[in-house]
């Protein structure tokens, strides 16, 4: 795993000389999903805590909102698997159209292995989430209004810890896409610069789509 950090191309070359290990490969996206599940469960509990406390103080039930919160947390855990499969599908389609490498199925393996690079950050994120203190917020009047929710949203957008987390998330995601490029370069023999340009443009498109969403 360390060579994935310091010499990714050599790492993928070594892996490709061995038979495909799908269990090892699956460990990457599934491990990321599991760690993201924990950190997001803690973050969402802390962020929505004051809101749910206010609702409870008003005598309102938070049962349905809680189930929706858990659903959101579960969705985050699936994101890594979806990114892995969508990226693999895109690279395989590109490969079939333009490169015709002898073993396109290995693209799925190298893409999955790249996710091991995210594990240290996602582990650290659990620590950050446990230490996170949400910005102080309480509804202005006895009832939660749209402006109260808008204020909470603004506070969360301006929170220093969350800004750092979002920035680092973006940096690690960019690194992940860089590793997809290194893996594809090794599997398909496309020059490293072009492979990186391909996967980084994918990163740009996905980023743009999520920003638009």
């Amino acid at each position: 795993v360390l060579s994935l950090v310091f010499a990714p191309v050599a790492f993928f070359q070594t892996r490709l000389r061995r038979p495909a290990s799908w269990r090892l490969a699956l460990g990457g996206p599934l491990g990321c999903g599991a760690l993201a599940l924990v950190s997001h469960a803690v973050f969402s509990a802390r962020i929505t805590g004051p809101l749910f406390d206010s609702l409870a103080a008003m005598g309102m039930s938070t049962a349905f909102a809680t189930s929706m919160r858990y659903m959101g947390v579960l969705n985050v855990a699936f994101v890594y698997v979806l990114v892995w499969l969508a990226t693999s599908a895109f690279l395989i389609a590109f490969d079939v159209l333009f490169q015709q490498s002898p073993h396109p199925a290995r693209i799925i393996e190298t893409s999955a292995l790249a996710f091991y690079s995210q594990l240290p950050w996602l582990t650290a994120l659990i620590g950050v989430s446990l230490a996170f203190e949400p910005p102080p917020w309480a509804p202005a009047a006895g009832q939660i209004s749209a402006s109260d929710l808008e204020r909470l949203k603004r506070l969360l957008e301006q929170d220093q810890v969350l800004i750092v987390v979002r920035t680092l998330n973006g940096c690690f995601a960019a690194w992940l896409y860089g590793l997809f490029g290194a893996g594809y370069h090794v599997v398909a023999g496309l020059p490293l610069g072009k492979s990186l340009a391909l996967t980084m443009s994918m990163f740009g498109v996905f980023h743009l789509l999520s920003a638009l969403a």
Partner: protein
Amino acid sequence: MTPRLLRRLIVANSAVLLAAALCGASLSTIEQHRVRLDVVQPSPSAGVVASARAIVVENGRVWLAIGGGALAFGAVGAAVIATNGFRFGMDVATVTRSDPGQLRFLLPHSALEFAALTLAASACQCLGWRILELLAFARRPGPILPSLLALAASAGLGVVAAVVEAVSQAARLG
């Protein structure tokens, strides 16, 4: 005849749905959630037809997301089933504990909706596998017609579920 792969995927997705719903129900029981349904009123609808139309649009969005997810080998379908199943299990357990009589407004359309979701997800995963067979493994892919038929059937079920939900909502509002 349904091909073996599609059948297996339907069974696997049903198992995921059941497991997710059980997890959700267990969590609701552990956390002892309750809800007063007399204060949780759905927004007044403009009528069964308008309400059904709005629900068809919502169901259609989910169906399109699952269909588009075929390009990611159908993983979106599994994610939708697991997350919605979890939430459904949690909400059903909460309603059962609070006011079991309300389940008659919740279960009929939910059963149809989840049948549609499971069918759509399985069909898309099957199609995703066929694409993978063709592109990555350079094998002759299996038949795709049953998956396309299953996808069409799931769309039909989604429409029926929307109508049932609109009728249930109208009945609940009295």
